[in-house]
């Protein structure tokens, strides 16, 4: 044993470069770039310099993503040819170690519980089913049948069991130091945007800061990586990520301006300015947008469903602004959550609500619903329902909008559910039919006052 250890020391000094994981924080990764998409998917490119022997050799690649999609691995480099790629995820555990030791001989060290004296014996493992059956000398025993302590020492670990799932590539090479580019896709990395919006009601402006928030649940650190974020969710070909997104209702009219940012096909790219380490179980935020004093205004909206009635329902407070280059945020917005803050009387920012936004082109008119207004309420009443014939009803509605705020407000009041053929027979104020099934009144409600609208509908329901 001792002699072997000494021989090992000599051998080791020759092969030291192979121990790539010696010091903490060091990694076998080379020059890493990580491209992260919105849909929990990332492309990792890792340029490692390998010291290759001439001919065929098997190279291991530790420190790849623990969730690597092994079928997407590509390795390339000057003068190398791939023979095969293997991804082994049979983990080395005590049970596996014993199972693979069947037929081999191990050393048992028994400790005398009274004296602490140790005795060594060699044993052949015959089976490991439920209990471990061994042959010691000429007798057959079950390991630790008496419950007394026994150390089992194995001479070796099985060659194809590993501590971590491991990628290995067998390749042919002319030999020497070869820079190789390893690339693969992995789930477990994703990003979204988080916006901090400070609304100044007096000046009717917003300050918006955008942060990209990336999350690493892939089980692996990416050290000193060049990070690129792609605003988009490429279909991953398995029908999982390909479903269309629900519209969030935040884009009033989609913009037609093209931004200055780099793009890849239809996706915008957000490269991080500096290299950074994306650690496992980490959420990282980096700023990408900072706009001050963009114009914004607040409106109130309320939509009543067909035959809906309520005593005093709050209207929604909605913040409207533009992402246009002129008079707006001047950028396209990746999908995420916009949190809106306002200063209280002491000047401290307070949170007033948030809204999910979808990826928004530059030049769009946006409306963000921040919450329900305490002081602007709508009372809706079904005043009268008359049956005109077997298929027509006449419905008289009354809407009372009250404003307890000390200033006048504008409320967009809508009645939906008109099913296309509903006619308005009479209304106290002119409305706009915004779509076949929706009609809208824009109401100016005076300070501490109220406005009442009545309308009579003629329809099938």
């Amino acid at each position, binding site marked *: 044993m001792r002699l072997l250890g000494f021989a090992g020391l000599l051998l080791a000094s020759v092969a030291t470069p192979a121990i790539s994981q010696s010091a903490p924080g060091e990694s076998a990764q080379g020059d890493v770039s990580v491209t992260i998409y919105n849909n929990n998917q990332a492309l990792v490119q890792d340029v490692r310099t390998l010291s290759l022997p001439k001919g065929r050799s098997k190279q291991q690649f530790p420190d790849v993503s623990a969730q690597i999609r092994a079928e997407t691995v590509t390795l390339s480099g000057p003068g190398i040819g791939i023979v095969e790629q293997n991804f082994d995820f049979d983990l080395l555990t005590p049970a596996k170690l014993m199972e693979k030791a069947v037929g081999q001989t191990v050393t048992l060290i028994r400790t005398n519980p009274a004296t602490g004296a140790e005795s060594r014996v060699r044993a052949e493992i015959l089976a490991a089913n439920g209990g471990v059956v061994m042959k010691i000398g000429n007798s057959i025993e079950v390991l630790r049948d008496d419950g007394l302590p026994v150390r089992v020492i194995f001479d070796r670990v099985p060659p194809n069991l590993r501590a971590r799932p491991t990628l290995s590539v067998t390749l042919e090479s002319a030999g020497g130091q070869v820079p190789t580019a390893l690339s693969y896709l992995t789930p477990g990395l994703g990003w979204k945007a988080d916006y901090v919006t400070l609304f100044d009601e007096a000046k009717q402006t917003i300050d918006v800061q955008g942060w990209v928030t990336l999350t690493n649940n892939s089980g692996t650190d990416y050290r000193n990586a060049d990070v690129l974020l792609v605003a988009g969710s490429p279909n991953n070909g398995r029908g999982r990520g390909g479903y269309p997104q629900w519209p969030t209702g935040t884009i009033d009219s989609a913009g037609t301006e093209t931004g200055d940012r780099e793009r890849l096909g239809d996706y915008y790219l957000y490269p991080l300015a500096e290299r950074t380490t994306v650690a496992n179980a980490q959420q990282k935020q980096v700023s990408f947008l900072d706009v001050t004093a963009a114009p914004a205004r607040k409106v109130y909206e309320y939509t009543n469903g067909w035959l809906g009635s309520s005593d005093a329902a709050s209207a929604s407070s909605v913040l409207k602004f533009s992402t246009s280059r002129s008079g707006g945020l001047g950028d396209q917005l990746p999908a995420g959550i916009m949190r809106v803050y306002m200063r209280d009387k002491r000047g401290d920012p307070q949170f007033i609500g948030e809204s999910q936004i979808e990826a928004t082109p530059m030049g769009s008119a946006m409306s963000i619903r921040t919450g329900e207004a305490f002081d*602007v309420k709508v009372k809706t009443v079904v005043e009268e329902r008359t049956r005109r014939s077997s298929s027509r009803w006449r419905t008289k509605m009354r809407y009372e909008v009250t404003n307890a705020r000390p200033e006048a407000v504008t409320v967009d009041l809508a009645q939906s559910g008109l099913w296309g053929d509903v006619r308005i027979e009479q209304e106290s104020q002119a409305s706009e039919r915004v779509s076949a099934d929706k009609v809208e009144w824009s109401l100016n409600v005076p300070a501490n006052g109220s406005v009442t609208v009545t309308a009579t509908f003629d329809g099938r329901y």
Partner: protein
Amino acid sequence: MTFSRFFAFLAPLLAPQAVPLAAQQLVVSDQPENVSITIYRAPDRGERAIDPDWPQGYALITETRTVQLPAGDTMVRFEGVSEGMFPESAIVTGLPNGVREKNRDARLLSPQGLVDAYLKRAVSITRTDRATGASRTQNVFITAGPDGGVIFESDEGFEALRCTGLPERMTFPAVPADLSPRPTLSILTTSSRPITAKLTLSYLASGFDWQANYVATVKRQPPGEKPKMDLFAWLTVANGGKQSFENANMMVIAGEPNRERHGEQPRPTGGALQIRCWPMQRTDEVPYNPGYLPPSPPPPPAPMAMMVGEGEEIMVTAMRRSGDRMDMASPVAAVVAEQEGLGDLKLYRVPERVTVNAKGQKQVAMIVQPDVSYDRIYVARASEHSGDSTPLSYILRSRNDEKSGLGIPLPAGNVAVFENSPFGPLLAGEGDLPDRAINNEIEIVVGQSPDVRLAVAELRRTKSRAYWRATISNARNHPIAVEMEIARDIAGRARGVEIVDGVPTWRVTVPANDEARLDYVIRLR
């Protein structure tokens, strides 16, 4: 294997050190100097009570912290933040060159985390002899772990941890730099020279909630006068977290800010070492026993001590004998939260600094409105079936204006109505109030009165008409106001019935110890 044995000897030199990456310096900000906490109600909680274990609302926490920044790149780590923090909402201001990145790390220092960090590295194993107490330490090298067990290599060969029956413990040379005791927020920033920076950190955190708890005390008035009550409200806040906020500015927000479902957080790593050894069955354990024993049932709770002392009962009796008790008055509030507008929400600020305790609830007065006038109205909805008489509910109705003694925003909450009686103040009922703006109508459903009853009966029916009669009986010794809705298609006009918000409603005053009758006709299809 030979390489690794070689490495085992060098290990002490190469052991992990608690140094952050690259040339960053670490500055730890362990606690805030000044905290403001603004609490928001749980969205969609409705009339349900606050969950005291983990309140479903949230809070905006704003802290000021002073840090000494050296020149160059610095990582500032924040400690003592609320454990319910939504890290993506964190905002840090007050740095000369801004924030380069914000990180929230959730690799936790744990037995599993240590083995994971020391995989392929050197640790030591100490075995203590149970017989002699002597211990022996061996330098070993972790070959595999922490999933499914730990295998290590010594100069004797490979062994599995804790499969021997011997007392074994692992010793690690240092704490790995990237493991922390709890999820940690840090920022990267840079400064050209050493400075003292006053930072403001604000973030949203879960585990908080609040509501208004109204106490309405009905005043005893001389007969014939308009009834009045004193309206008082407590602002009840709850903190379900482990973090106390001492000497904090406290505010609450009434109204309904929109909240979205928040995205996926990094899952904290780490936990207990789960060691599974090779099969360990002995010859006496055949046939195979999966080794699972159901957990023993929990011990029965200790019998409750009989806490109701006799002394207490005697005291109550004595109080009863004292005859008429004092009328209940609303509590006198020395500190009342101040209300201000915040956009379309209402902000209530506690004017003094308070301490919001971990796992605690706190109450401060928020509304004190004496002499609120109201109407007591019995309400009913005419049934569509004939039947025996049923008791009517009664409500307290008022308008949120100055004329009624109100005219202030009333945030949603529970209302307990007390009435004074010869036996002292008694609970008359509890109701709920939604958010009410100035000038809105207020209705609190208090309870039912067995003395005021409604009976409806169909008297006769033709092909197209049904003739109904409603009878309201009043066994009280004073007149009462009743409103009965007839949510049906009424034919013609009935005396006393008017259409209120589209619903035919019979408004009537029933004299003391008397009845009122209404005949009405329903149109049949």
